[in-house]
């Protein structure tokens, strides 16, 4: 087992051993699953809506280069400056340049997973620019010096007591208050002043509309609206896949996303931004920038099957319904995107050397694929990426394809193949096992046996019994 995989297993074990993690996630995921189910009472309507959502995303990916160019042209017409970055380094430099041009000291941030992908806060910090998260969950996680454990609810791994302790420890003049309402008030007061002072606002983008050059952002708190409105400069960072062709295309996605994510029929705010402050307007940023990040997405786009990964609208339903995620939580994955979507996305971004073991952390139960609002066949893709991780053709389209292949495992499957491709050998093997009456609990069976009785081969195999019965042919 390579080092990253070993570390992955260590993190899993730590999470499983932490009763707080187990309880926090279980309770949260049970609640989210129930809420989502209540939001889609009509299965026929849901399936039709999923068809439309998937079609919107597939359409966008099928015409991605054309739509990006159209988006760029429309944004330019609207006064939005578009930047392109192939890597996170390049993306960070672009944001830094914008900040420097405005002599920015403080940046306020709306929730953005792409900025997590860029590790933008850390990067700007190295250049003396304070980047503060304004989404309450992100703010909590940043205060704790952690990473989000969920893509929609970043602090879902913590309970009120833990957050009260954190505030009391980190915030000057704040005592221990174990009350969500009071804690929220504290954060609001601090952040309101930060919004007031911020030089630059950085946000993500839920959908970018090529037809109108609009950036669509959804949220509940209002931090996203403040981030994109109050500071004189707004920088929106997003992956190149987030574009949709037409304005109407956002309607099914807006209908699916919040219901799938948090079981709300709509978020408190849906904010469609189509430019900086125009003549005669009294507020809004003087400059709006849109940063389009590749970071491996063009490579994912190249393969028609893997491309489906890019249909994702980051709703989190797959992790909310994943029995593995519910038990190990988001941090165990060790990646920005956890859960099923992370298991298929991260190996393609970071490569199989680093995180090729992620797709293995699934029982392939299919709960993720069943709830995906845009019909990404996640279970199928998990299998595909397992294949790429042990590829031996040298032609894998996935970064680091084949890196997880080990001689021992490959030899085991070769042996399995030999036995199961030969009826005679197979019958010999099964009859031997029957005669021996069992297998010693060694190697992999040891794990199995730690919580289960080891199955014993029957006295006679089905082959033998049906031969006696006269069904064999």
């Amino acid at each position, binding site marked *: 087992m390579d080092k990253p995989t070993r570390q992955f297993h260590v993190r899993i074990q730590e999470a499983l051993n932490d009763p707080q993690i187990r309880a926090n996630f279980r309770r949260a995921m049970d609640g989210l699953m129930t809420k989502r189910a209540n939001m889609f009472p009509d299965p026929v309507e849901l399936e039709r809506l999923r068809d439309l959502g998937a079609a919107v995303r597939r359409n966008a990916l099928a015409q991605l280069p054309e739509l990006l160019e159209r988006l760029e042209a429309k944004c330019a017409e609207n006064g939005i400056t578009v930047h392109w970055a*192939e890597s996170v380094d390049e993306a960070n430099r672009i944001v830094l340049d914008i900040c420097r041009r405005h002599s920015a000291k403080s940046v306020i941030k709306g929730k953005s997973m792409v900025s997590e992908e860029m590790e933008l806060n850390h990067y700007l910090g190295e250049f003396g620019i304070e980047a503060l998260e304004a989404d309450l969950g992100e703010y909590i996680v940043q205060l704790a010096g952690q990473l989000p454990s969920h893509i929609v609810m970043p602090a879902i791994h913590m309970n009120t007591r833990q957050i009260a302790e954190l505030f009391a420890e980190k915030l000057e003049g704040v005592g221990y208050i174990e009350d969500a309402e009071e804690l929220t008030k504290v954060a609001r007061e601090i952040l309101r002043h930060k919004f007031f002072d911020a030089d630059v606002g950085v946000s993500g983008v839920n959908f970018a509309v090529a037809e109108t050059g609009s950036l669509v952002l959804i949220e509940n*708190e209002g931090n996203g*609206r*403040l981030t994109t409105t109050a500071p004189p400069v707004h920088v929106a960072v997003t992956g190149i896949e987030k574009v949709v062709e037409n304005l*109407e295309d956002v309607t099914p996605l807006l209908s699916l996303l919040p219901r799938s994510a948090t079981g709300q029929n709509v978020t408190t705010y849906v904010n469609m931004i189509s430019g900086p402050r125009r003549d005669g307007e*009294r507020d809004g940023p003087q400059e709006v920038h849109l940063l389009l990040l590749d970071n491996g997405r063009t490579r994912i786009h190249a393969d028609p099957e893997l491309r489906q990964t890019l249909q994702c609208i980051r709703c989190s339903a797959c992790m909310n319904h994943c029995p593995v995620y519910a038990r190990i939580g988001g941090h165990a994955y060790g990646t920005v995107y956890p859960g099923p979507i992370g298991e298929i996305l991260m190996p393609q971004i970071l490569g199989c050397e680093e995180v090729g073991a992620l797709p293995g952390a699934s029982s392939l139960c299919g709960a993720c694929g069943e709830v995906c609002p845009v019909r990404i066949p996640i279970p199928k893709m998990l299998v595909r990426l397992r294949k790429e991780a042990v590829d031996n053709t040298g032609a894998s389209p996935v970064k680091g394809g084949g890196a997880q292949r080990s001689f021992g495992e490959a030899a085991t499957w070769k042996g399995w193949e030999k036995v199961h491709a030969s009826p005679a050998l197979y019958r010999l093997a099964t009859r031997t096992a029957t005669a021996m009456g069992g297998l010693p609990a060694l190697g992999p069976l040891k794990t199995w046996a730690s919580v289960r009785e080891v199955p014993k081969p029957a006295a006679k195999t089905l082959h033998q019994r049906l031969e006696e019965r006269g069904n064999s042919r």
Partner: protein
Amino acid sequence: MSGSRENILRRLRDSRETGAAVGRDFTVIEDLQWSGDEAVARFTGLMRAVNTEVHETTREAWPAKLAELCVAKQVMRLALAADTPVGQAARSVLLDTSVETVAYSRDIEDWREELFFQVDAGLSTAAGGIVETGSLFLQTGPDEPRLLSLVPPIHFVVLSRADFANTLLEMLRRHDLAAGMPTNVLLISGPSKTADIEQTLVYGVHGPRQLVVLLTD
């Protein structure tokens, strides 16, 4: 940097099996329809479910209702549009009360501190209401800037039932927004809220803690 643009686009053009548009059938959304009374009941029900105050009133009576609510909520200063019908109607009725009105007719830079820390409420006009989700549809602009509905702790909105649409799709089509978008289009569905602390619902994070809709005929 333009090298990155070209590289990204070139790689995307090299991808296999692309180019053909995928058809989208919007009938699942178009099928959503509510009749007049159903629409009002659904809209107000959904809005109230997320802690919005909805007051059913009339075109004539809403300013008086606003004045009454401002007094009840101890609003000292109300920001509003200087020149819109809604702004003017509110101003004239509030003249006789203790509520001071502040017209948002200056650039934000000129009264930033005042807006952030000394205004209790904002009044704006909804361009429509979306029945499916119980959402207000707002288009900001020179008269009603973006922060008017966001920064003050209480947000009053005047909405006419005549401006209901079944869905966002219908609303986008009605206003022909695909042909041109204002700088900011907003859907607002309730006061600002969060559930980031142990899924406990708390209202009033960064945006208004109270959303008050004056629903006219």
